[in-house]
C-alpha cells in the first residue's frame, strides 16, 4: 500500500496517497484549479500551463496536473502571482485562437471560452492578435469530423486520445516553435488518412478545433418539407446520455422523454434502432452458428473464425486499414443503423404505403463514425441512400433546445410502430459486451432450446469496463440438429477502445488465441462512450451510463431478441428466414481493404 503524504493547500492540510498530483489533492478539498490539456482518460501532458500553482520555496509555478505531492508541500492556488500567470496564459491562448465565439459551433460549450469568461479577459488587455499571420486551415472534407486549426490551442488531447485510447494516431504533432500544429500525415485531409471517424478526439477537444459535421439544418429542412416523410431511429446509447446535455442527471434513462421530444420536433415516425439491433442478433447469431457448422461439420477450410462483430463503424474502418487480411472474419451483417435504413425504405415503406423516394431517414447516434458509414457507397441497398442524415446525441440536444422544449418536463411516450419495438437484448448493444451478451442469449437458446445458464439472463463475465474480457460458454443438451456442438466450449472475447481491439487482433494474428466470436466496439465503454455523446466523458460517467443501460434491460418485459414480436413479424412477412435472399440483399454487406498508412 502506498504511503500517505501530508501537504497543505491554501492553508488546509490534506493527506493523500503518494503519487497523487497537486491537482488531484486540491480536488479532494473541493478547490477547483482550471485545466485545459488535462483529461482524466489521458496521460498527463502538462502543456497548457493554465493549472499552475504557487509552491512555497519554489522559483517557478509548477503545473499542478503534472506535479506529484511531496511531504510538507505548501501549495497556494489563489495568489496574485498565480492569477496573473493564469490570466497571461489564457490571454496567450486567445491571441493564437480564432475567437469568433458567437458564430462558433462550440459557443457555450468551449472550455477556453469558459476560462476567458471566468477570468474576465477583456479586449483592452489582450496581446496582439496572431491569427491573421497564421494561415490556418480548415479541413472539412470528412463527412464526420471538421478540423479547424484556427480554433486549436495545441493541448494535444486529441493526439493523446488517438494514440492512447485508439492506437490510431491519425493525428500527431508536427513542426515546432510558432509553427507547431496538430496534423495528420503530411497534412492530408482527415478523410484520406487512417482516421476511423470515431470522434473520441471531438469528444475531448476543449474548443471548436475538432467538431462533428452537423446536419441539424438539413434535418430541419426535411422536417419542414411537407412532401417528405421523415423517419427517425434512435440508437440504444442515446437514451442513457441525452439527458446530460439537457440538464438531467448523468445515468438517468430518458427514453420516453426523448420519444416525446422527437415527435414534438416534427418527425413523422419515431422508431428505434433497437428493433434492428434485435434483428442483427438473429442474423449475426445465425451467421455464427452457420460458420461453426461449416467449420466443425463440413470441415470447410474457407470458413473464417473467429467471427467478429460489425456494428461499430469506427472498428470497421480500423480493421479495413489495419488488418485487411481479416475482413472475411467480420460478420457480413450491416450495423443496426444501416439495417434500419435499408428496411425503412423497403419494408416500412411497403407496410405504410409510402413512396420510398419521399422518405427521409434520419438516425440519432452516439457516434460520429455513423455519419461516414451512412455515406459508404454500399449503403444504398434500398435503391436510395438508406440513411440520409446521421445526427449525434449532441446535435439532437441542440435541436431540442432550438425547438424550445423543456426536456425535463416532457411527458413520456412510446415509439411508433412498425420497427419501434425492442427487447432488453437490443438495449444493451449500447454498452461494451452487450452485443455478445445478446447474441449468447439467442444463440444458446437456438442450439439448446433452453435459456443461457446465467442468473436472470445476466451474462456478467462479458460486462464491465476492463479493456479486454474473455468468456467461455460450454454448450450441453443440444437439440438434434445442433448436436455437433454438444460439449463444445464457445470462446468469446469482448474489447472496447481500439487500443484493446489491437490487442485482441494481434493475439488472433499471432495464433495466441482461439476465439470463436469477438465483439469489438471502437469507443471506450462501447457506444455509451461514443464520440457523439455529450461532453464531458470519463470513467465515472461511462459507468453511470452503463448502469442505466443494464437497468433498462432488466426492466424490459422481453429480454431476448428472438422473442421480439416485430422481429417474428418481419421474418414471417418480409424476410422469410435468417440469412435468406432478402436478408442478403438488404441486411448484409462487404468491406474493403484500405491503405495502411
Amino acid at each position, binding site marked *: 500500500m502506498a504511503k500517505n503524504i501530508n501537504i497543505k493547500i491554501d492553508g488546509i492540510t490534506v493527506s493523500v496517497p503518494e503519487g497523487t498530483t497537486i491537482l488531484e489533492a486540491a480536488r479532494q478539498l473541493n478547490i477547483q484549479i482550471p485545466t485545459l490539456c488535462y483529461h482524466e482518460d489521458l496521460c498527463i501532458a502538462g502543456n497548457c500551463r493554465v493549472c499552475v500553482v504557487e509552491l512555497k520555496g519554489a522559483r517557478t509555478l509548477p503545473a499542478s496536473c503534472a506535479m506529484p505531492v511531496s511531504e510538507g508541500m505548501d501549495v497556494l492556488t489563489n495568489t496574485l502571482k498565480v492569477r496573473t500567470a493564469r490570466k497571461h496564459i489564457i490571454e496567450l491562448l486567445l491571441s493564437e485562437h480564432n475567437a469568433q465565439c458567437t458564430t462558433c459551433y462550440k459557443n457555450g460549450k468551449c472550455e477556453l471560452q469558459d476560462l476567458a469568461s471566468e477570468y474576465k479577459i477583456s479586449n483592452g488587455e489582450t496581446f496582439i492578435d496572431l491569427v491573421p499571420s497564421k494561415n490556418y486551415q480548415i479541413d472539412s472534407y470528412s463527412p464526420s469530423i471538421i478540423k479547424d486549426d484556427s480554433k486549436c490551442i495545441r493541448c494535444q488531447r486529441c493526439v493523446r486520445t488517438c494514440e492512447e485510447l485508439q492506437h490510431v494516431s491519425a493525428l500527431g504533432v508536427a513542426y515546432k516553435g510558432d509553427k507547431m500544429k496538430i496534423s*495528420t500525415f*503530411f497534412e492530408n485531409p482527415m478523410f484520406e488518412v487512417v482516421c476511423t471517424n470515431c470522434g473520441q478526439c471531438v469528444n475531448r477537444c476543449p474548443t471548436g478545433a475538432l467538431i462533428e459535421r452537423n446536419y441539424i439544418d438539413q434535418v430541419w429542412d426535411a422536417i419542414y418539407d411537407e412532401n417528405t416523410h421523415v423517419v427517425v431511429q434512435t440508437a440504444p446509447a442515446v437514451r442513457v446520455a441525452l439527458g446530460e446535455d439537457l440538464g438531467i442527471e448523468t445515468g438517468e434513462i430518458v427514453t420516453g422523454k426523448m420519444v416525446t421530444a422527437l415527435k414534438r420536433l416534427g418527425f413523422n415516425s419515431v422508431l428505434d434502432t433497437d428493433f434492428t439491433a434485435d434483428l442483427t442478433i438473429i442474423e449475426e447469431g445465425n451467421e455464427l452458428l452457420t460458420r461453426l457448422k461449416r467449420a466443425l461439420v463440413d470441415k470447410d477450410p474457407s470458413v473464417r473464425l473467429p467471427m467478429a462483430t460489425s456494428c461499430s463503424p469506427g472498428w470497421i474502418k480500423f480493421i479495413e486499414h489495419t488488418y485487411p487480411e481479416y475482413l472475411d472474419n467480420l460478420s457480413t451483417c450491416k450495423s443496426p443503423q444501416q439495417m434500419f435504413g435499408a428496411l425503412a425504405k423497403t419494408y416500412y415503406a411497403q407496410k405504410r404505403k409510402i413512396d420510398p423516394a419521399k422518405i427521409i431517414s434520419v438516425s440519432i447516434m452516439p457516434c460520429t463514425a455513423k455519419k461516414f458509414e451512412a455515406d459508404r457507397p454500399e449503403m444504398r441497398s434500398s435503391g436510395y441512400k438508406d440513411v440520409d442524415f446521421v445526427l449525434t446525441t449532441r446535435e439532437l440536444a441542440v435541436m431540442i433546445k432550438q425547438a424550445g422544449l423543456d426536456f425535463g418536463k416532457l411527458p413520456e411516450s412510446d415509439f411508433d410502430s412498425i420497427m419501434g419495438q425492442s427487447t432488453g437484448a437490443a438495449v444493451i448493444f449500447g454498452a461494451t459486451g452487450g452485443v455478445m451478451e445478446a447474441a449468447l442469449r439467442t444463440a444458446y437458446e437456438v442450439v439448446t432450446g433452453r435459456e443461457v445458464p446465467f442468473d436472470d439472463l445476466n451474462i456478467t463475465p462479458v460486462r464491465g469496463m476492463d479493456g479486454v474480457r474473455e468468456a467461455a460458454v460450454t454448450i450441453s443438451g443440444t437439440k438434434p440438429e445442433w448436436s455437433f456442438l454438444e460439449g463444445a466450449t464457445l470462446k468469446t472475447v469482448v474489447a472496447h477502445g481500439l487500443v484493446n481491439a489491437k490487442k485482441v487482433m494481434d493475439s488472433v494474428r499471432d495464433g495466441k488465441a482461439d476465439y470463436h466470436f469477438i465483439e469489438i466496439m471502437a469507443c471506450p465503454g462501447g457506444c455509451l462512450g461514443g464520440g457523439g455523446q455529450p461532453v464531458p466523458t470519463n470513467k465515472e460517467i461511462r459507468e453511470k451510463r452503463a448502469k442505466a443501460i443494464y437497468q433498462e434491460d432488466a426492466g424490459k418485459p422481453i429480454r431476448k431478441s428472438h422473442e421480439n414480436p416485430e422481429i417474428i413479424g418481419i421474418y414471417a412477412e418480409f424476410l422469410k428466414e435468417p440469412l435468406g435472399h432478402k436478408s442478403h440483399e438488404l441486411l448484409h454487406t462487404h468491406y474493403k481493404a484500405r491503405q495502411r498508412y
Partner: protein
Amino acid sequence: MPEIKDLVKGLADTHGRTRESLIPILQGVITHENYISDEAMTEIARELDISAAQVYGTATFYSFLDTQPRGKYVIRVCKTITCAMKGKNLIIQELEDLLKVKLGETTPNRKFSLLETNCLGWCHKGPAMLINDEAYTELTPEKVREIINEYIKK
C-alpha cells in the same frame, strides 16, 4: 518507389525497427535522397509499425530532416546574431545571385538548395554556412564564389 522501399528496408536492417531507430533511419534517407518524401515516410511507418503521422511529426520537428525536395547540396547559412552582425545578408545575396534562386528555393537542376539556419556554432568565425555536412567560415562574397564554383564543378 521500389528504390525507396529498398532504401528504407536496408536502413531498418541496419538501425533496427524500434522507435529509437526512427531518427537514424530518417537521417539515412536524407543522406541518400536529400529529403524525406511521403513515400519514404510511409515505408518507414510500415517498417517500424508506427503511424505515418508520428513519422511526419518527428521529421518536421528537426530542421535537418527536410520533408520537401532539396538539391544535392543543401546550403544553410547561419542567421544567428554574430553571423548576422558579420554580414550574413551579403553572403545570402551573393548566393542568390550565383545560384539564381531565392532563399528557401532549390535550383531547377536540383543541385543546390539555399536555406537559412539557426546558430551553427561558428560564432567567432562568422559568417558561416554548411553545405551538407561541411562547414565554411569567415565567408566573404569572393570566398562564397570560389566555394560554389568548386561545387558547380562536382
